[in-house]
């Protein structure tokens, strides 16, 4: 299991469209991926769970991945949310 605390740099935060892209990205990996914000943990592969967190730009989240491709998954997702556009 790998986990990392990161800051969300996406300008709009995880609004509906960016969230959908994020979930799509997460679903490419076979690992179980979770996002934790303020002590609430949700499955990163489910769009409704992700959107219920209402993650805004600048907030700090923890990404947790567990499985065969956990390292790659974590890296790809961190890349996505740290991208400013």
């Amino acid at each position, binding site marked *: 299991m790998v986990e990392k605390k990161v800051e969300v740099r996406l300008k709009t935060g995880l609004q509906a469209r960016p969230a959908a892209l994020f979930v799509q990205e997460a*679903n490419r990996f076979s690992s179980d991926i979770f996002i934790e914000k303020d*002590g609430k*943990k949700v*499955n990163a592969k489910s*769009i*409704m*769970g992700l*959107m219920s967190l209402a993650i805004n730009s600048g907030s700090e989240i923890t990404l947790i991945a567990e499985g065969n491709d956990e390292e790659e998954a974590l890296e790809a997702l961190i890349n996505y949310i740290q991208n400013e556009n």
Partner: protein
Amino acid sequence: MSKVRTKDIIEKFQLELISGEEGISRPIITSDLSRPGLEMAGYFTYYPKERIQLLGRTELTFFAKLTPEEKKSRMEQLCTDVTPAIIVSREMEAPPELIEASEKSNVPVLRSPLKTTRLSSRLTNFLESKLAPTTAVHGVLVDIYGVGVLITGKSGVGKSETALELVKRGHRLIADDCVEIRQEDRDTLVGSAPELIRHLLEIRGLGIIDVMTLFGAGAVRSHKRISLVIDLELWDPNKQYDRLGLDEEKMKILDAELTKLTIPVRPGRNLAVIIEVAAMNFRLKRMGFNAAEQFTNKLADVIEDGDHDDF
């Protein structure tokens, strides 16, 4: 864990704020209350200062009999920097010593028209539900014939689609994708949806739909006690699935144990019907009728009788 502050109970119980306004953002960390009777008599060794303190008629009439020096010192010891609130019940006057001490240490002093016992039971109920341990689970919660069924399984296995079919059949949706679970009692788990995604369902290919506007108010509910967990998984030919239903698998959420059924998913299996029947069968078992057990007993009897018939 959701935080409760003194101002929340002021709002909820419409309490009158007498003094110590600076302390109304103090957190309340325990659902236990304290009636500081022994403390009024001067015994502060085990004073539970982190609890809400309730001053009723008994405490205040006893307090009135004390000497002025005692009054001052007792109230100063009562008001600490962690006490979330001191509530005077029955609309009684707060002693001036209490107001003075509370202003010094910023403990909110509140007043309620209710009787002490009534107030204390309502406060306990409110605090217990607010301070109950919580968790969030990936799954769908549906009320099927009055049984709260939590459907879990990997992403894309068909949880939301099954929920949609169940709603179409007249059952009620509580939460899709993310279920917030609160443990209200030793074995009572109550699930609800996060505020933002309440009544919504996400179906691949359709997107987000609002179940309440589509199917009406009868198709949703805000919270429900969870009784049964159904885990959907893709059919694994190497795995043995339950064929008899004699043993009950259990699953632990927070500290409570729930009955769990594992149902394999394969094209052509109508999951909604299977889950509907699982819920009905669960009710039947709780009423004391266990089809699997009755059948095995009958089978055992017939086999035994058969042995005798051979002679």
